[in-house]
């Protein structure tokens, strides 16, 4: 017997993601899904945001890694609540993992949750977590050809942080060509050049985050 199913396989993740988004918007909380390859500087970028924003905004961090608590311990050392999700081999976070993590956070008192996704440029782009904003990092050492190789993620984010610009003199990274390709793929995406090492661009990155936080609050009051 044949049964017509016609069911979207990602439907369950999408439903949970929508629930997460609704939950965050009820409390006016901004949640950023931060994606990048391993070693691009996700944790360093989060730590820069904590340094600049935690004085004025209540923050928490959700760390996604295949294994270890290294990142969440580093964040906790800065007196910011950090939850570690170990995916146990899975290459991305899912909406249900975030839903469970949100249960542990006091959303009432938070302005910003940063989710550090598992280091990977492919799978995280396919799984909606219910975030209010998507940010990716492309670092100088990875090369300027990455938007050619992983166009989907470059298309789907709200901001692209180009990290490690202090290494530009030592690498053959063609910033003009990188910017051109990213602008072609994603004309609305903000491109922010950054160095977590010397602090270059931190103001611009934190300004972007502050705007995202206030947009979440505005949505709440409207």
């Amino acid at each position: 017997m044949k049964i017509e199913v016609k069911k979207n396989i990602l439907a369950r993740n999408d439903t949970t993601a929508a629930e997460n988004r609704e939950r965050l918007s009820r409390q006016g909380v901004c949640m950023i899904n931060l994606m990048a390859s391993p070693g691009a500087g996700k944790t360093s970028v989060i730590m820069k945001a904590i340094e600049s924003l935690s004085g004025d905004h209540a923050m928490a961090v959700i760390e996604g890694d295949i294994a270890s608590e290294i990142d969440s311990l580093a964040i906790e050392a800065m007196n910011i609540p950090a939850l570690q999700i170990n995916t146990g081999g899975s290459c991305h976070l899912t909406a249900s993992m975030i839903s469970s993590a949100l249960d542990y956070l006091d959303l009432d008192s938070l302005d910003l949750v940063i989710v550090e996704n598992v280091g990977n440029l492919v799978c995280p782009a396919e799984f909606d977590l219910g975030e209010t904003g998507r940010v990716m990092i492309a670092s100088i050492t990875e090369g300027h050809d990455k938007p050619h190789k992983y166009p989907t993620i470059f298309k789907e984010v709200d901001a692209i942080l180009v990290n490690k610009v202090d290494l530009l003199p030592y690498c053959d990274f063609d910033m003009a060509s990188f910017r051109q390709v990213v602008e072609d793929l994603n004309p609305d995406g903000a491109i922010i050049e950054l160095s977590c090492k010397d602090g270059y661009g931190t103001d611009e990155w934190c300004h972007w985050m502050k705007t995202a936080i206030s947009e979440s609050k505005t949505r709440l009051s409207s």
Partner: protein
Amino acid sequence: MHEYAITESILEIVQTEASQAGAIRVDEVKVVIGELSSFAGSSIEFYFEELSHGTVAEGARLVFEELEANAICCSCGSGFRPRNAFYSCPECGSRLFDLKQGQELYIDSIEVT
């Protein structure tokens, strides 16, 4: 690797549908994959064999149907088939297009006994 999570969802849907139909065995599962989705049928097959052990879907045949992509260029409005997310419009060269079809991932139907 992300096919593991996908295969778990496939099994969940298949088991629900089979139990609603009172089936004792699932013979075939037809999955439609858009050609621009990043899901590989061969990986789904691999995980399906492992995950379906001891379920009503054990031994079921997986059939994949690939759906061709089609898109409308956001700049000049012409229709074309993008071969990847980095594709340019063959008419005007713009990389901005509205994908109408090609990222699907759904279970079309199942055959049960």
